[in-house]
């Protein structure tokens, strides 16, 4: 192994880094401003924090440099021994099934732990959103930064229909999906001719437009106050409450509020699995193949006679529909929705889940949703630092594994044997 730079050079790098950090943090951290009681700005100094931050950067750079020497140059092609490869594929085959069985048993195991059940419902909601967005981003390769708009359309569809007309959840659920899909097509039309980054920014603008309209159209949506008193879901018409008509009374068991939570858990699990099943089936249909072809190379797609217009529109509509389902579920679970739940941060979070999971991999998306939402919960006590950590994690993950956790592509069409290849080797067309 080649000897790396010596101690003086490491110290020099660390010193320069610390100096940069000192300038960067000098005013932003060293001085704290606050508006006083009379509106007059006051400030006080925080040199202690400043010094400790700069010291942390100094120490951190030394550690980083040492690690870099021990690990060796990055970017080298990593060869995986065949034994490890077959072991990985063995685990890969059974981990999904094991995870599914465990998920099915969660309400049984944690029946008395309301907190865990609530968290599990939240995780499953994001798994469903991730799988829905995966159709657009992972399969069709269309970068969508405004996915939360469809989530909002679904939530408001159910919220408004249920509170104004008293329609039941089971009638509204398909309607929410259809409405969201309709909006997906509506968004799809203007962006048909756009590619890559333009597409991203237009979808972002679309998401913001939907949110701003919800805030401003007060007569319909209640504006910033949101919609409250959204009815809870019923067990196909039988309410889950403590009345004589309730499910508990009909079954002759003692009523417990946990019944509703467990029901919600299985409801979102079913919806998420529906999303997964539909995606897997669609991948085998011509339309799914067209999506994947579009992701790899749009020009080649056109040359082969694939209608890129319908291909893109169906991808948007399908992804949006699942977002709409998830939105309707969100509304019925919360009982209250407001525009605050549908900010750009949500879109970015779902997108981060999809990309971290390895775009196109269903299992990867589920695992990364678990990691992300679980990680968010771990940092709940550090309320204001949470998004800071989230942002840093996003940057670091991109540097460490730009292709996500499970970054391989299994071809859907093959001659004799499907060889999964690392997605690092796949060069995507700029579609």
């Amino acid at each position, binding site marked *: 192994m080649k000897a790396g730079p010596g101690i003086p050079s490491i110290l020099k790098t660390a010193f320069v880094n610390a100096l940069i950090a000192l300038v*960067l943090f000098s005013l932003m951290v060293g001085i704290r*401003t606050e508006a006083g009681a009379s509106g007059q700005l006051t400030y006080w100094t925080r040199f202690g924090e400043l010094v400790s931050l700069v010291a942390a950067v100094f120490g951190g750079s030394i550690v980083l440099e040492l690690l870099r020497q021990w690990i060796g140059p990055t970017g080298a092609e990593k060869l995986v021994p065949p034994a490890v490869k077959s072991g990985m594929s063995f685990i890969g085959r059974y981990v999904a099934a094991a995870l599914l069985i465990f998920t099915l048993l969660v309400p049984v195991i944690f029946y008395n732990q309301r907190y865990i059940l609530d968290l599990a419902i939240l995780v499953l909601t994001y798994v469903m959103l991730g799988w829905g967005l995966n159709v657009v981003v992972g399969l069709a390769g269309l970068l969508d930064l405004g996915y939360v708009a469809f989530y909002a359309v679904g939530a408001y569809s159910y919220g408004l229909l249920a509170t104004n007309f008293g329609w039941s959840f089971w009638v509204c659920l398909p309607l929410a999906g259809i409405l969201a899909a309709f909006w997906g097509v509506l968004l799809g039309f203007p962006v048909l*001719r756009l590619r890559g980054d333009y597409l991203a920014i*237009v979808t972002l603008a679309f998401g913001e437009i939907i949110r701003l309209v919800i805030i401003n159209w007060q007569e319909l949506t209640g504006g910033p106050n949101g919609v409250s008193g959204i009815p809870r879901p019923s067990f196909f018409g039988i309410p889950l409450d403590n009345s004589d008509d309730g499910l508990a009374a009909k079954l002759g068991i003692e009523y417990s509020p946990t019944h509703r939570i467990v029901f919600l858990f299985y409801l979102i699990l079913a919806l998420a699995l529906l999303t997964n099943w539909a995606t897997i089936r669609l991948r085998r249909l011509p339309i799914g193949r067209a999506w994947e072809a579009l992701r790899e190379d749009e020009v080649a797609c056109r040359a082969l006679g694939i209608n890129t217009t319908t291909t893109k529109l169906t991808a948007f509509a399908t992804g949006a529909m699942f977002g709409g389902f998830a939105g309707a579920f969100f509304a019925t679970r919360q009982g209250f929705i407001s525009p605050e739940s549908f900010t750009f941060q949500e879109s970015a979070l779902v997108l*981060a889940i999809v990309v971290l999971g390895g775009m196109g991999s269903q299992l990867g998306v589920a695992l990364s949703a678990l990691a992300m939402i679980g990680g968010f919960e771990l940092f709940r006590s550090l309320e204001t630092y949470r998004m*800071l950590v989230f*942002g840093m994690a*996003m*940057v670091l993950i991109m540097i460490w594994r730009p*292709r996500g956790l499970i970054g391989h592509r299994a071809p859907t069409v093959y001659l004799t044997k499907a060889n999964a290849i690392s997605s690092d080797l796949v060069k995507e067309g700029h579609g």
Partner: protein
Amino acid sequence: MDYFTQQLINGLVLGSIYGLIAIGYTMVYGIVGMINFAHGDVFMIGGFIALITFLILISLGLTAIPLILLVVLLVSMAITALYGWTIERIAYRPLRHSFRLAPMLSAIGMSFVLTNYSQVAQGARVKPIPPFITGGYTLHESTDGFVIQLSNIQIMVVVITVVLLALFTWLVSRTRLGRDMRACEQDQTMAALLGVDVDRTISMTFVIGAALAAVAGLMYLLYYGTVDFFMGFVAGIKAFTAAVLGGIGSLPGAMLGGLAIGLIETFWSAYFSVGYKDVAAFSILIVVLIFMPTGLLGRPEVEKV
């Protein structure tokens, strides 16, 4: 008519600020081919640094306003430029040859880091400053008492923008650095073969973009009198809209787009409704991209197989 003229002035001032931010977007997009999502937050950081420098200078007992302004301008440009450089170094350079979504997501992450960093460091509340530059001119007073005002701060914003644009145009068209930047924009590999330090050129692009964003942040602070940690997001999207509207990659286009967005937003607020002004700006983006995907002054992108 008087009302219209007044709104025209307001719109041009707002548009100047957007234009300065948009230049940062369009430069980076032209050279690296990525949306620097964190650029709006760099603008916000610039505003914060200007605010803090103001506070310190005033508490030191300085009273000469031109001197204060000059020092604030230089300090906030310098520190914000260092922010731009660091961001490129940490979040974008390792990903330069990665697949196309990676830098974009890294940029979104960086944007979250900057937003929440300033929230943690400086608190979530809006920070007001007392008006520094007061006074102005009454251009015209109509019979029904409506007055067209042109305030000194508005004049200052436009003058600084014009001066900076002239400087910047000179930099891009006449200096060694500008030539390197244009070379990297066309073909990075070829530029490297001909002895252009590509890494350094890209770093300098981020530094210049951040410095211009810092000026925009200072002007926003002076014009509106407040900064807060969230102002970078909306301003960033609008500036990007401006860059796309003008034709991304084109520098005069960015300024033109900035002015257009500023005017659209101001007139929409004046004649229709304030609540929907952002909706109007974003709808313009979508409409422009449908009918003119390359923007007003952009070159059509030819895709090769």
